[in-house]
């Protein structure tokens, strides 16, 4: 089972929504589309589903060109951010509805509905109720169960948990990959949250302004972004950036600090670069002799109970640090922060990654 997009693009009223995109998805995989609102996630899903026809390119399903084929004729299931169920049918009827259309026998339907309901933790007594009598989480479980019984080759989930309470989201997020792993279909899951992508695992395609900026195994995309855009999209809190300069065999980080061009920085040509590092790699104490030191001004602190977010101003750049433990700090004070060079990503001025952080490639 496979879905291949070949140079697929889509414009609406002359505005490009999706630039020419190539993508290959395999059966039994979870594929996350990660990107901010209106980065093209939903547009791309609609092209995959056949709800929209691309302006150029081909959609190939199991080796067969299905470009322009009606969505009804393809095996596609979709779950939306809004809880969409048939309000006049019971939960049981809702889950059974796609199988009724496929003219399955009564026994087949019954066992499939019960199994899907059980997987989605919908208690048997809920099956007789109408969707609107359920809580938001249960309504979405019903919609997910309906997508599951359809046994569609392609299941598209468009921010399915966005309208749910935080804790409920956390629980369903842990369950969804387990449930869908067994089903063997191709799953595509759109989300705006980097943490959700990491928890779902599988593959991730980061999206930005109608383009897929990188596609690969989720941890690889996270740890080895091929460009600054991907790094920015796949970092919450956002990645911090700093202008650096390579000259005389040393990489200069400003304030007279430099490190030799060894390890990950080997082979960098002279010139200007952009250094990026994640908030959790910023330290408040010097942990090694090679650690870089930066003088910053503390703008705001946020305490989550176990961790402290520090918002810093470094010579006009806004940085965020995520520090372990609870720190009570004085706002507006100067503060020295430290960074191990092994956590630094180097991007060329056009944003292309030229040296991924050495800790990431070592792992």
């Amino acid at each position, binding site marked *: 089972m496979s879905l291949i997009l070949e140079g697929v693009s889509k414009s609406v009223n002359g505005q490009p929504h999706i630039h020419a995109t190539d993508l290959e998805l395999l059966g039994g995989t979870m594929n996350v589309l990660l990107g901010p*609102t209106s980065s093209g996630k939903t547009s791309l899903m609609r092209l995959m589903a056949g709800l929209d026809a691309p302006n150029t390119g081909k959609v190939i399903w199991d080796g067969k060109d299905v470009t322009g084929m009606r969505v009804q004729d393809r095996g596609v299931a979709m779950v939306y951010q809004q809880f969409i169920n048939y309000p006049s049918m019971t939960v049981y009827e809702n889950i059974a509805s796609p199988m009724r259309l496929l003219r399955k026998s009564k026994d087949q339907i019954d066992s499939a509905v019960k199994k899907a309901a059980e997987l989605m933790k919908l208690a048997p007594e809920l099956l007789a109720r109408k969707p609107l009598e359920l809580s938001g989480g249960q309504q979405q479980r019903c919609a997910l169960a309906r997508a599951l019984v359809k046994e569609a080759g392609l299941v598209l989930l468009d921010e399915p948990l966005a309208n749910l309470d*935080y804790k409920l989201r*956390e629980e369903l997020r*842990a369950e969804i990959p387990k449930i869908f792993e067994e089903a063997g279909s191709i799953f595509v899951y759109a989300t705006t949250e980097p943490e959700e992508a990491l928890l779902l695992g599988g593959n991730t395609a980061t999206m930005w302004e109608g383009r897929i900026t990188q596609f690969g195994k989720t941890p690889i995309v996270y740890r080895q972004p091929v460009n600054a855009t991907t790094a920015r999209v796949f970092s919450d809190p956002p990645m911090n950036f700093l202008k650096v300069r390579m000259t005389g065999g040393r990489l200069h980080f400003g304030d007279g600090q430099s490190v030799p061009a060894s390890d990950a920085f080997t082979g960098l040509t002279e010139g200007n670069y952009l250094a990026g590092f994640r908030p959790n790699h910023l330290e408040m104490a010097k942990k090694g002799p090679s650690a870089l030191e930066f003088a910053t001004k503390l703008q705001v602190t*946020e305490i989550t109970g176990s961790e402290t977010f520090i918002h810093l101003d470094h010579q006009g750049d806004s940085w965020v640090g995520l520090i372990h433990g609870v720190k009570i700090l004085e706002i507006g004070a100067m503060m020295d922060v430290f960074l191990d060079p092994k956590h630094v990503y180097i991007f060329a001025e056009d944003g292309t990654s030229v040296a991924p952080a050495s800790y990431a490639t070592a792992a």
Partner: protein
Amino acid sequence: MAKITLENLAHSYLPKPTREEDYALKSMDHDWVDGEAYALLGSSGCGKSTLLNIISGLLHPSQGRILFNDKDVTMAPTTQRNIAQVFQFPVVYDTMTVRDNLAFPLRNRGSDPAYIQERVQQIAAMIGMEATLDRKARGLTADAKQKISLGRGMVREDVNALLFDEPLTVIDPHMKWELRTQLKSLHHEFGHTMIYVTHDQTEALTFADKVVVMFDGRVVQMGTPQQLFETPEHTFVGYFIGSPGMNVLEAKVSGDKAVIAGTEISLGQGFGTPTGKVELGVRPEFVTLQSGDEGLPVTIKRVEDVGRHKIVRADFQGIEINIIAAEGENISPDMNRVVFDTAGINIYSDSWRVAPKAA
């Protein structure tokens, strides 16, 4: 700015409530300090919106009083309470410019035009919208509109309290950071009394000086983020705060020892002999995975890489125990035991925390 007092406050949507279950908000007494930022945290239907509506004057409580600076406002309408509110979805006056939107509350109160001009400019600078002041609000993005709502709330200097009703729902994660930071620094700068309703623990914890955790119409704990994290007063708080939430295991406790499914562990301090349903709670952050034969025997089910750390899901006799491990830590399959950091252990009797007894 004002101190807010809730006195024997309760509310029921039924005309004649008799039983406790009839109350959407159960009787509570609280003093909320002037100039602090509070977050009301809980899942939907826990009563947090009811409480907010009582404070804003949209709803009159069926019992008790609410005071602003010791003045009874229980029956006063919204207009007389002198509050500002930012809603879940941006509320802006579409046909007005951004400038007129910001000036609106001041103009309605007949402020001096020169003052309005100056104040609007000041607020626009704070929310970073100076460049768009003369644009129509219609057609701006959701986060720009929400910034306008926020600015309109801040424009009056004399408000008693600023209320926020899940204001970041429609905002992208990246923008959430920016808006939250802005809110936080505005609070730091002006010291408004702020009340922020949310179901998102990160938003609540990072925003507030004090977080009010609500469950089933009741305030189960009010405290600093650190208190909620380290000493959850109720197992619900332990579960609701933190992700994943606290591990809760049934245990037999006597003194400074606990027995969990036949394995004895040391608690580090004495708890006497609590009665009722006794449970031990320990956050994933205080659990360490190791090999050997010390600690509780577990089998590893899954390891989730969340980037900055790993979440290990382990099975202990059919109960899931979550462990948080550092980003670089190696999880090997022969790790079959977990040990708890005694500093992170809390004991619960019938879901409420038992304070440790001095030895």
